[in-house]
């Protein structure tokens, strides 16, 4: 599966994401500059973490207007796989590819640490190799990860099974203490109704080799690859 990794001014996780899919997963991969509208026949697009456009105005707000995001939207509308990680998730929210918005973390601090997340939906291409209830250890590093959505819209999200990951204890309990940022219902990642666009605050590319302390991120990339090899 050919992966495309977007690059915005201020992205800083694009090389990590490229390394994870290219070197760890052994897949072809290319960087795609934010001014480009050519997705180079990639079968999956990663919108990486960082501080696109310095996080000016709001996180992800300026990146949304980049030429490449128009191409990503058309790609997603055709069913292409789009994975937004951290700032990439924020960009997908601002772009309207995913519902909701991010607020400053509940504690007003940048939080950078390993967290546990529980797989809530294993029926989408990003989690097909997981089982619902699996607990993954994956690091987060963000200031605006406090996901919010009005109550009615959130109910709809839950009904549609669009909550893909929740912050939890190492045992898989979704407690208030295991929620690092105040996110509604411990949400750590959500998908669109079709399940081909995923946004998540934790960084799977930072949990893809033994040296990094966890390989749970590999399951996500492996699921993506497997989903298209069956198709």
């Amino acid at each position: 599966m050919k992966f495309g990794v977007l690059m915005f001014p201020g992205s800083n996780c694009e090389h990590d994401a490229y390394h994870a899919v290219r070197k760890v997963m052994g897949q072809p991969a290319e960087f795609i500059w934010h001014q480009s509208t050519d997705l180079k026949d990639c079968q999956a697009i990663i919108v990486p973490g960082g501080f696109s456009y310095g996080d000016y105005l709001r996180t992800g707000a300026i990146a949304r207007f980049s030429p490449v995001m128009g191409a990503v939207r058309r790609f997603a509308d055709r069913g292409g796989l789009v994975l937004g990680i951290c700032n990439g998730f924020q960009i997908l929210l601002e772009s309207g590819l995913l519902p909701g918005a991010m607020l400053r973390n509940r504690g007003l601090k940048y939080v950078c640490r390993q967290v546990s997340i529980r797989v809530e939906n294993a029926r989408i291409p990003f989690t097909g190799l997981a089982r619902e209830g699996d607990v993954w250890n994956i690091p987060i590093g963000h200031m605006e990860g406090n996901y919010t959505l009005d109550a009615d819209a959130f109910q709809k999200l839950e009904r549609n099974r669009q909550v893909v990951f929740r912050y939890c204890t190492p045992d898989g309990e979704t407690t208030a203490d295991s929620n690092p940022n105040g996110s509604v219902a411990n949400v750590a990642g959500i998908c669109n109704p079709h399940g081909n666009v995923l946004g998540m605050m934790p960084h799977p590319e930072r949990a893809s080799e033994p040296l990094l302390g966890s390989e749970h991120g590999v399951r996500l990339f492996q699921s993506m690859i497997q989903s298209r090899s069956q198709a």
Partner: protein
Amino acid sequence: MKARVYVSLKKSVLDPQGKTIHHSLQNIGFRKITEVRQGKFFEIDFASELTREEVQAEVEKIARDVLTNPVIEEFSYRIE
């Protein structure tokens, strides 16, 4: 013409920064404050050939499409 646009979190959205400022103000003696909300402020200058109505239409579009995220924020503006 100049537009001044004020963006703030919707009342229904918790504003942790405003709350923190409120607590600090109380701690240093400003005890009669009932609420603090933090927001953003933009000054936008328009070319002089635009009419007031045109400026108003542009400001509303800019505020709605760019300056705010309608999920969490609202705006007000003045034109001078």
